[in-house]
């Protein structure tokens, strides 16, 4: 997939989120009781994620994407 297509994919996904100012999507502050649960955090299990990232980095050609990993390792 070319650079252009990938950026286009992101832009489409991002505009879906109404970042251009439309606040139709979202919740009121007092509606956050479920979202506040620890297990609902996007990085709820950082240790599992770090271990998975390390395993897949050493065994596959693609890596990362979710955020920045730490540094590199000589296993790939």
């Amino acid at each position, binding site marked *: 997939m070319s*650079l252009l297509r990938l950026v286009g994919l992101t832009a489409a996904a991002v505009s879906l989120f109404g970042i251009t100012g439309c606040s139709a999507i979202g*919740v009121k502050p007092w*509606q*956050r009781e479920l979202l506040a649960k620890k297990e609902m955090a996007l990085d709820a299990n950082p240790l599992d994620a770090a271990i998975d990232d390390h395993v897949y980095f050493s065994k596959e050609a693609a890596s990362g994407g979710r955020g920045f990993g730490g540094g590199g390792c*000589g*296993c790939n």
Partner: protein
Amino acid sequence: MQLNKSTTPLRLGLMAASCALLGAPVARSQVAPDGEQPLLIDTGLLYYKEDQGRVQTIEPIVNLKKNYGDDHVLGVTLTFDSLTGGSPNGAIPSRKAQTFATPSGTSLQPVSGVPQTYTTPSGQVVALLAKVTLYSVNPGQLPLDPNFHDRRIAADASWSQPMGLDTHASISGHLSNELDFNSAAVNGALSRDFNGKNTTVSGGFNLELDRINPIGGAPVGGTDYIQLLKGGNKSKNLVGGLFGVTQVMSRRWVSQVNYTYDTSKGYLTDPYKIISVVDTTGASTGYRFENRPNTRTRQSVYVGNKVYLGGEVLDLSYRRGSDNWGIKSNTVDGRLRIDLGNDVYIEPHARWYRQAAADFYHLYLNQADALPTYMSADQRLAEFRATTFGLKLGIGFDGNNELSLRIEEYQQKAAQTSSSLANLQGLNLNPGLKSAIVQIGWRYEY
């Protein structure tokens, strides 16, 4: 609270209003904005084992996180990694026994005592100048370097804090050391909240500098294996950026989209991997050291979701990656956390991964063809599908403490595993990979 037929509208209204007021979660950082939170210790012990006598590793990891109050958070991670076992050296199985040299010592130095000789597949006997150890592989077996061992120590530190009302900043550093590899990295990120914290936009950069000191020296890429020509130490660097948007989609669903871009420059070749050269019948005539381009540009789009499904939490993500080596990848990863009550949960996990081969990937080279500039037989650059199936069990106790056990099975199946050449008939040239992952975790608040 007892609700019965005679509960007045006023009482109902009051109950609802109270619930809304008290249900409104005060985010952890708000509970003690001027006060610090307990130290969170997250430890894990990973045991990874591939079948067929291949790689195994034991990796303890400790992560410490301390919120000093008002969202000023310090994180420190220490990792120790010990690898043993055999790793494929890139050559394909052959009808005949094969002999290889392990990377060791320094090349081009005379051997004291009886000179070592090495017999090439075509029967030529060569006197070795370099000090090497030889190992043999039986006919039909996938060549594995049995002396593959490594130990790695890594340390990470990160600091994050608010910068003004809706902005957060973070910076982190990483250092790691292996027998043949050293890495230093730094990354920084900035994020800003909008729409009443329903939308968060973040941007970050990543800088990494690596030093590669291959055991025995770095071979000159693409040269004949028999020459065992080795150069000095190498280096590479990586510069990358990330742009992401996190959006609360509903009371039960939060989503994140990230776009990442990075460029690596320098020595990107695997110094220990070779590629078989075969004649028209498929018989091995020799090997070449692999040679990869010295730049690589990668991009990926990642979409992650967390959905609360009436008691269970679903984590579903998709990642699409591509790079200028021709490798395109698709990943779908799903986890479902099921609460069993009494602070116990199970979490089944499934992951599907597919990648296309690098442009310069070849299972083997044909002697008749012109030698390509770049070549690699590393299975990790081949076209393959991989699946992971796993289950995690977590037991919580005493507040925020948790003991967990995770068992997963990872399998890779290559697309290209055979050849029509006579001498390679019936041989599985790329048997893929099967491994087990067992992880014990202990999370403790101190």
